[in-house]
């Protein structure tokens, strides 16, 4: 057997077709026995040149592609793009758009529901990587319920293409509010059992406690964002500190990591990130309930309920001639900050659209924190950062 020996080390090619790499991530791992001495991420296997495509499509046509930037939370990606384009339009004098109130609420509702369903994948896939298959399936089951609601409203289960510049494509289907409420109630119960089954399990805590702690300074420097940043103890959430849309109307807490694993753990370890993500689901449930309470009723008009680009003449006009200039717009997605750096040359096609994603930045820290971990820890680490590869490669 040829071990490609380099001194006493073994070089492992983990991926791109490895069960734990959540897609087509490849890690060049050098190990000393089971202990990793070096790890280099190798990405690009899922590169679809989405940024290049964006330079050849009109502003509204790019929305289906944002679904595919991060298909686990397509609704949030939609939201980030339309918010960014609307923010760009708002910098022009005559292109500022009025978004219907109901559409704003629907956007937040769906973004939060999709955050829940994305965290279901994140939490579930992490437990699956660590050998517990049952919690994963239970979490996926909850995601399916969210998809049922989305499917009835927008017609798709994965790539929603639901939000558009100026509003949303369709109004909620009849009974959507009740379905959402029922889902949230059921979710709370299921999540309690999920946590009883896995979060307090000694094996699970033992595998995550103290594994790859990320200090606050490192977390900032390496651009971690979202639950990964908050797991390291930094109290920062774009929804609260730089509110976009109508997030300033809702009351919610920002969960921050603080050595949840007790004496065995360290601040910013895998368990902190896991628990932060779990707590965020609860906060999303709170936001969803407030949205459902505050949402104005439908106008009753069939043709223009909430104002999409295809029905809103103002949006069509604005998108044909956006202001010249640039903008960097940041949104809080489940996997951290999704930023769009848009450069417009005043035509109906973007001049440049740079997409900054949470997973891409989270992957940059691997080279630093992996040495000293075991192979099993690396698997848990990928799960605890909730890496989603289409978002990395774009």
């Amino acid at each position: 057997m040829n071990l490609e020996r380099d001194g006493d080390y073994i070089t492992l090619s983990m991926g791109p077709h490895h069960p734990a790499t959540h897609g087509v991530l490849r890690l060049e791992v050098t190990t000393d026995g089971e202990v990793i001495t070096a790890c280099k991420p190798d990405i690009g296997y899922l590169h679809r040149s989405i940024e290049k495509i964006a330079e050849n499509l009109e502003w509204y046509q790019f929305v289906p592609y944002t679904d595919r930037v991060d298909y686990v939370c397509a609704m949030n990606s939609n939201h980030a793009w339309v918010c960014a384009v609307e923010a760009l339009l708002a910098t022009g004098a005559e292109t500022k758009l009025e978004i219907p109130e109901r559409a704003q609420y629907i956007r937040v509702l769906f973004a939060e529901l999709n955050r829940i369903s994305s965290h279901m994948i994140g939490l579930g896939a992490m437990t699956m990587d660590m050998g517990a298959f049952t919690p994963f399936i239970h979490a996926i089951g909850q995601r399916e319920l969210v998809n049922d609601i989305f499917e009835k409203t927008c017609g798709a289960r994965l790539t929603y293409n639901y939000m558009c510049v100026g509003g949303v494509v369709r109004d909620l289907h009849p009974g959507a509010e009740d379905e959402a409420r029922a889902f949230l109630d059921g979710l709370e119960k299921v999540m309690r059992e999920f946590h009883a089954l896995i979060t307090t399990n000694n094996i699970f805590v033992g595998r995550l406690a103290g594994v790859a702690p990320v200090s606050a300074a490192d977390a900032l420097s390496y651009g971690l964002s979202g639950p990964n940043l908050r797991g390291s103890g930094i109290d920062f959430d774009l929804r609260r500190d730089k509110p976009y849309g109508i997030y300033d109307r809702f009351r919610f807490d920002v969960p921050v990591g603080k050595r949840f694993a007790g004496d065995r753990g360290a601040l910013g370890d895998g368990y902190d990130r896991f628990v932060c993500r779990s707590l965020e689901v609860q906060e999303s449930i709170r936001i969803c309930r407030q949205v459902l309470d505050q949402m104005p009723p439908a106008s009753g008009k069939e043709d223009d309920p909430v104002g999409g680009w295809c029905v809103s003449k103002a949006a069509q006009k604005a998108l044909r001639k956006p202001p010249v200039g640039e903008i960097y717009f940041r949104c809080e997605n489940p996997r951290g900050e999704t930023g769009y750096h848009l450069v417009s040359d005043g035509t109906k096609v973007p001049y440049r659209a740079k997409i900054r994603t949470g997973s891409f930045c989270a992957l940059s820290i691997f080279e630093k924190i992996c040495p000293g971990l075991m192979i099993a820890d690396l698997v848990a680490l990928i799960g605890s950062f909730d890496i989603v590869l289409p978002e990395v490669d774009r």
Partner: protein
Amino acid sequence: MSILGWVREIVEGVEATAHGLATTARYLKDNATDTGDGSAMTVDYPVQPARVPDGYRGHLFNAVDDCTLCKQCQRACPIDCISMEGELNENAKFHISRYDIDLSKCIYCGLCTQICPTGSLRMTKGFEIDPRNSVNERGGRYLYRMRPDQTRRRMDTLEVDRLNRITAADPSTLSDDDRAFLSEVEDERGGRFLFARFGMGFYTPEEKAEADRIRAERKRAKEQAAAEAAAKVAADQAALQSDQAHGSAGGNP
């Protein structure tokens, strides 16, 4: 580590395991008895039908009678999978002669249907790629081209309508004519399920003329064969009759 800590670790481990086992046991019981929260969420597809809600974004369907050929859908499509052609008909009215949606490229985003001014372009509930299972709005089966070499034969609107009707109907109620049509269509070298890219396929004028010519030729050949057969039968009968006549004449002088 103190003795107490040691005991506590063991006890906590046993407790967590027991708790987990109790949870899964409850799910197992619920699922087995099909009651409560733990009952199965999945359906036994395809034995049980899939639950497709209204407004589902499935295969595209264009009602060509309503289509005004404004080409908005073609422009809105982010992956350029729609192409169409029009022509003037005998009443000097502009109408659609070819409307192709390449469903191997379509991403089902729905931008084309959002922008369609007449509402002729719609997304149906059909989602199964296997054309033998997918059912369009009219209840007939979709036809789509499978490989480039299977696309030689194209159909006109009437034929598509007819085929949709036939495939939607109970096979036992088909007339012989329909059966013959179906077998003719199926026996084309394109295979049994063919034509157009998906949804609808139409001739361009040249193709239509060519197809008409081929069909006329085929019809002529068939008529000729029938005529020959009839002539042969007639000749045989005549021979028989003459034989009989001869025999009767000979046998019964």
